[in-house]
């Protein structure tokens, strides 16, 4: 794990101890399009410590994946631009280091897995070749050593008969197995942070649970920080420690998982929770948040959620709510979080 080209960026005694493993601070990302400037991420901040799981929750277009891509440094720039903000990994702002230093960090220290594992694997190479490539490129191993490691890793992510399947191609695996291979590739070099961008969305429910279990287990073994990006509240309940709920490029609620589940402090999180289908409410109409997510080209004034919010008052239309701190571990970007917590009005 010693990597001089990266470590030199951290000065000795540079409040490393005080820094979380990974901190996103007031991050802004915008895209230049023909229609105008799209502000996909507007001041997102979150932190992740080793061994911790942070779930980033939000619907499509809320900026959760863009934030992750900015952390990885895989945004296409242009059209993307990061006008403001910091992404600190071990205290070093990743946005300021050279591209070579970032290439060193990608895959080795921060890795990522994707939603659709079939399209995320190269169709012309065997899975063994692709896993072994990680070792050959980054660890200078020989082909044989790499393949041995690939088999070990495939065993570790519970692919049955790994030795026989190491020379199979991605399309010969089922969806769940492909995701396991993707996970094997991402954990190959023992990264400190793993970002999982909707890792289970393309899978059926039973396989979803297995993959989440596998991720949680691998995390326990290696004490890595895990950022779990999802739009599925059900997926995160068991594995996440903290939740960051995103809406229109901002974090609207940041809290421990149990706090959010027990008493959401933002009308949007509350709406998300209420729209989970429940067995005990069978036969009743399923709750849905009214309206549609905002057009990022033409954002509502004030609080971006106000056109859909049952707690809306006059000042929501004009004043952008700051992220109010409710307690040490919990914050909400709603002027009326107290009413939301109490469940009054609406």
């Amino acid at each position, binding site marked *: 794990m010693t990597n001089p080209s990266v470590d030199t960026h951290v000065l000795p005694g540079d409040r490393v101890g005080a820094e979380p493993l990974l901190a996103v601070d007031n991050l802004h990302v915008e895209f230049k399009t023909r229609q105008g400037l799209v502000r996909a991420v507007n001041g997102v901040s979150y932190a992740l410590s080793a061994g911790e799981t942070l779930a980033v929750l939000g619907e499509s277009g809320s900026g959760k994946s863009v934030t992750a891509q900015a952390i*990885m440094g*895989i945004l296409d720039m242009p059209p993307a631009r990061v006008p403001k903000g910091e992404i600190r990994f071990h205290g070093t702002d990743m946005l300021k280091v050279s591209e070579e230093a970032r*290439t*060193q*960090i*990608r*895959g*080795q220290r921060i*890795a*990522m897995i*994707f939603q*659709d594992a079939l*399209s*995320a*694997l*190269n*169709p*012309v*190479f*065997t899975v063994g070749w692709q896993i072994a*490539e*990680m070792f050959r*490129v*980054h660890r200078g191993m020989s082909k044989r050593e790499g393949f041995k490691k690939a088999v070990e890793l495939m065993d570790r992510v519970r692919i049955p008969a790994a030795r026989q399947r190491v020379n*199979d*191609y991605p*399309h*010969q*695996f*089922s969806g769940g197995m492909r995701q396991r291979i*993707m996970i094997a*590739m*991402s954990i190959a*070099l023992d990264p400190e942070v793993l970002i999982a961008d909707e890792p289970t969305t393309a899978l059926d429910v039973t396989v979803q649970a297995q993959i989440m279990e596998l991720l949680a287990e691998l995390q326990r073994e290696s004490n890595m920080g895990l950022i779990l990006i999802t739009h599925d509240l059900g997926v995160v309940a068991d594995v996440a420690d903290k939740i960051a709920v995103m809406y229109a490029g901002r974090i609207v609620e940041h809290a421990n998982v149990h706090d959010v589940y027990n008493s959401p402090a933002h009308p949007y999180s509350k709406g998300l929770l209420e729209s989970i289908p429940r067995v005990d409410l069978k036969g009743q109409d399923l709750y849905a948040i009214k309206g549609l997510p905002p057009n990022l080209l033409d954002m509502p004034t004030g609080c971006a959620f106000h056109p859909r919010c049952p707690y809306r008052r006059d000042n929501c239309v004009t004043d952008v709510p700051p992220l109010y701190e409710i307690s040490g571990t919990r914050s909400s970007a709603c002027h009326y979080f107290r009413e939301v917590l109490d469940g009054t009005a609406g």
Partner: protein
Amino acid sequence: MSNATITQQPAKHTDVKAEKPASLWSDAWYDLRRNKVFLIGALLALILILVSAFPQLFSHINAYDPATCDLKNARKGITSEHWFGTDNLGCDTYSRVIYGARVSILVGIITTVITTVVGGGMGLVAGFFGHWSDILLSRLAEVFFAIPPILGALLILSVIGRDSAGVGTVVMALAVLYWPLLLRIMRAAVISAKSQDFVVAARALGASSGRIMLRHILPNAVAPVIVTATLNLGAFIAAEAGLSFLGVGVQSPTISWGLMISDARPWFLAQPEPLLFPALFLSITVLAFVMLGDAVRDALDPKLR
């Protein structure tokens, strides 16, 4: 995913499934070996390459030796000594056809290699790096693309000078006019491969730009280029014959089928053999490479089936 179903299938079927290889290339090779069009095309191409490399194996008469031509035997029909008859200078048409294969095959292969490497390489760069390199290379390609090929080749070859025209100049003229086609095809394939998730994933897992370009994009973009290159091979051979026929391609004493056709034209009605045989061999050669190209396309691009 097939594991579950395989157990319920008859054993014979599973055997076939298990034998069938899975990668694009081994799958394509599997298809090709069973494709009659490919086998016939490949056999013909192989024979032609052998003929052009070792013409002395196929003809005891060295067509390049002027002493073998005998004016007394001029314009004789098919005899046991002269299988394809003799031309108006008394040279043996069969040996000339055999020795003429070399120019056709050389022009076809060298032009294909040059256009593929130059056009394909530029297409890879243009597609992968985009932005100004794409604008620059694509516009440059369009300039050459706009020139009508036959006219362009006539122009280039007459400017270079008819004295120095040979295999090299014909290859150059054709390469200059046809590389933009390969650039376009490679560029389009690279751009479509570049936007695929596995390229983003490779980047997220720490692959460098060069590695992404050569390992992840090139193997996924090269198939249409190979198909076009194989199909072009036949076209280049035909183009060489055409240019030589028009008098701007290779020049006598070099033996070329196009030149032979041109030389035999005035006596065609009196004695057709010196024109018919090179024309027949030219057609067979072009056909062989077109068959190869078609078979390769079918194998590499299953969507067209």
